[in-house]
């Protein structure tokens, strides 16, 4: 009886593994971006890339490049990609994780990314985890890497989320319970009727944030919704179902009733510094940020636009769609028009505000963002304050210029 993680790693290593075992396994995709690839190139030195077709490189973090120095680094990345014949994604194509969800991730795949939020791809049933530049270089050179098989924590979400409550609120509720190191070295395996009812995009918010509790991977079952998601991107053939066995061995279990989840917010400067939005209502904010690999997908923009339609944002509103595909869909659905009419600065797909390299906060400013981290200095200024919330809370708060419970908005 196996967890999803044990199933994938057993298949890959050709042995019957359980939590705690050390294995070496082939990977299906290794990717890195402008923050992690340059060091990986240094580490690679004269080593060759074993499987160029299994490597992707993305310019997303400082994109479009804001300086000469970064442009030179990105030029070096382009040259590297071209000379090795590996897939390269340009400024404006999107955030690495959204590109990988759309073009590469699939159930049972092993994915290594030079970015901590690589755990996102567990939303499609992949075993996906973030590593540093040396591990990325080693995986590029040898086609495989070593893993310690993680023990799993079962997170069972039951029921249906109320209106204007997002999977982001579910994760903030979860991290409030297990804290920033509650899942260190472990797999967070999400299941239950609440997960079955969630879209793949909403699941990707949960798996994206798994690292915020220290997890190695966050993973959901690969069900019919995963199949439909892959079909939407012309990759239906990559679908194979994947579920944990009944009676699989979990280190611990967390149960969350979807009906009882309320809008949640993470306060500066830690992701597990969580409170219900209701406790902070009325606090002034300067900037609202909609986007990121956590909540920059089409349904996130749709939820925000639904609230913002016909209103002006009192706070500065900045929008970074997660990918070119997301932006195109948002244009076609009229979402971008709604956001622009509300006063938003709509920026090209990329990491943007989240990492603070192409757009930064001022001293003493307060931001409410849909991203995944609110560490001190995260958005480019050590003297700024960052709150994290769902797209609905962000949209309602933008209009009011103050932290606002989206359920009360318009009442």
């Amino acid at each position, binding site marked *: 009886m196996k967890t999803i993680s044990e199933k994938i790693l057993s298949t890959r290593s050709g042995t019957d593994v359980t939590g705690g075992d050390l294995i*070496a396994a082939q990977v299906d995709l290794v990717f890195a971006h402008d923050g*992690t690839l340059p060091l990986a190139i240094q580490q690679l030195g004269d080593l060759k890339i074993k499987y160029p077709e299994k490597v992707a490189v993305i310019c997303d973090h400082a994109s479009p490049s804001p300086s000469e120095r970064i442009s030179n680094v990105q030029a070096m990345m382009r040259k590297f990609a071209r000379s090795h014949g590996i897939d390269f994604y340009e400024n404006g194509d999107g955030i690495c994780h959204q590109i990988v969800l759309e073009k590469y991730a699939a159930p049972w795949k092993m994915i290594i*990314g*030079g970015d901590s939020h690589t755990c996102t791809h567990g939303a499609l049933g992949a075993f996906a985890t973030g590593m540093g530049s*040396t591990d990325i270089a080693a995986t590029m050179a040898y086609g495989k890497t070593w893993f310690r098989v993680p023990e799993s924590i079962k997170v069972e979400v039951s029921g249906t989320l109320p209106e204007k409550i997002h999977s982001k609120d579910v994760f903030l509720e979860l991290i409030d319970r297990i804290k920033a190191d509650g899942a*260190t070295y472990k797999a967070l395996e999400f299941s239950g009727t609440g997960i079955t009812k969630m879209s793949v995009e909403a699941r990707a918010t949960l798996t994206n944030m798994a690292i915020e509790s220290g997890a190695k991977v966050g993973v959901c079952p690969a069900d019919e919704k995963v199949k439909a998601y892959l079909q939407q991107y012309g990759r239906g053939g990559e679908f194979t179902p994947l579920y944990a066995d009944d009676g699989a061995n979990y280190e611990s279990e967390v149960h969350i009733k979807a009906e009882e989840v309320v809008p949640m917010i993470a306060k500066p400067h830690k992701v597990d510094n969580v409170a219900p939005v209701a406790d902070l209502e009325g606090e002034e904010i300067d900037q609202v940020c909609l986007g990121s690999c956590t909540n920059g997908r089409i349904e996130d923009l749709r939820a925000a636009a639904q609230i913002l339609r016909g209103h002006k944002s009192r706070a500065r509103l900045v929008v970074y769609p997660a990918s070119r595909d997301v932006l195109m869909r948002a244009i076609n659905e009229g979402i971008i028009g709604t956001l622009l009419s509300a006063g938003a600065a709509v920026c090209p797909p990329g990491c943007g505000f989240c990492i603070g*390299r192409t757009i930064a906060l001022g001293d003493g400013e307060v931001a409410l963002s849909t991203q995944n981290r609110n560490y001190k*200095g*995260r958005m*480019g200024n050590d003297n700024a304050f960052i709150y994290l919330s769902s797209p609905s809370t962000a949209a309602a708060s933008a209009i009011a210029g103050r932290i606002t419970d989206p359920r009360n908005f318009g009442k």
Partner: protein
Amino acid sequence: MTRIEAEVIRVFPRDTNTDEIIAGKYKYDELDINKLAMHVFESIDPSFYADTKKLKTPIIVAGANFGCGSSREQAPQVLKACGISCIIAESFARIFYRNGYNIGLPLIECKDVSKRVSHGDRLRVDFDEGTLLNVTTHEVYSFKPIPIFMQEILKAGGLINYLKNFGGFTD
């Protein structure tokens, strides 16, 4: 490196994150780790870098979950570049732990170490015995032995050298 004697430069609290170690705003522009290192801990401890120059063998002690957050290898790289010989924490975040060994920076997990050790204490770390002698207080603590695989990576001077020596990963 079976034994080192070092002075505790700082005792950092739990959940000290990679953005605090090296801010994201610097890492895209600067590929020279020695120059990047000048910004180490800038947002929470601006005198840290200067203080590393005053000690012969500085060592960091920390609470649980040291190095949480980003996968940026620049975090252990800048600490190594400014002379940190070893980090002893109650626990480490997973990616930081791998990154540390991959670049040849030993990381040791020791229960309650942030409560038992103070800034300025002299420590003698015995990697073979798995013991930590606090020369200042005369206390001895034991720590989790470093896995053999990690010791071999350290001995080789990092993961890439290890793999070159062994011709890749063994199955």
